């Protein structure tokens, strides 16, 4: 088995509360994806049940897909839905990337 390496995980909102930490250093195996790391954490922390549903990911402070393969020293974060807020009366905000 190849040697593991460490990544930094920044934890916010529900993740911070469930893990009782705002950051942690995690050893991961080569080839681990951001989504895979989240699956590990969810398996270890029952308080995160369902947390994977709407989450987005960042790697090194840039939004990244779940399939992004981690590199040594990466800073990873799981991004719950951002606070958003209602655009207008009775209207749910529409997300439209331009």
């Amino acid at each position, binding site marked *: 088995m190849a040697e593991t390496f460490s990544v930094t995980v920044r934890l916010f909102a529900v993740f911070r509360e469930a893990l009782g930490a705002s950051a942690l250093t995690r050893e991961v195996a080569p080839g681990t994806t951001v989504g895979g790391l989240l699956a590990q954490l969810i398996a270890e922390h029952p308080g995160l049940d369902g947390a994977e549903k709407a989450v987005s990911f960042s790697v090194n402070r840039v939004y990244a897909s779940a399939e992004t393969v981690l590199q040594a020293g990466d800073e990873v974060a799981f*991004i719950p*839905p*951002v606070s958003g807020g209602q655009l207008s009366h009775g209207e749910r905000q529409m997300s439209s990337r331009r």
Partner: protein
Amino acid sequence: MTTADIIAAGVFRILERPITADELIPHVLTDAYGAVATFSGTVRNHARGKHVTGLAYEAYPEMAEAEMRKIAAEVYAQWPDCRVAMLHRIGKLDIGEVSVAIAVATPHRKESFEACEFAINRLKETVPIWKKEAYDDGEVWVEGVAPSAEGASAGSA
């Protein structure tokens, strides 16, 4: 100055203190501009049909400021002759306090409104900031929009 220089010199901050829109005006107004539009988001006493008793914001500060600068780049791509600045407060806020402030200065007024509204809409979509609302019967992290990964597929697991 290049757009990158303008953004580097701009004000895009996550702060743990009271904020106002007017404090941004000196950072966006130049002698060539005649219009400043601002937006302030404030804490309401009701949300989702419940009475809000308290509220706290949490951010991923370094990434939030970086995302604000990306929004500024989007603003400058669409409205080349303007200046934008943004603040978001974190920590506990009282009802009526300002959580987010944006200011946009332009030569004429139509563009100031357009760019300011664009900026707050984008901020609400992409900047990693979360809100925990407290009600009479508990508290909850408010679920909003899931930001998507740049370009391609959504980052949802």
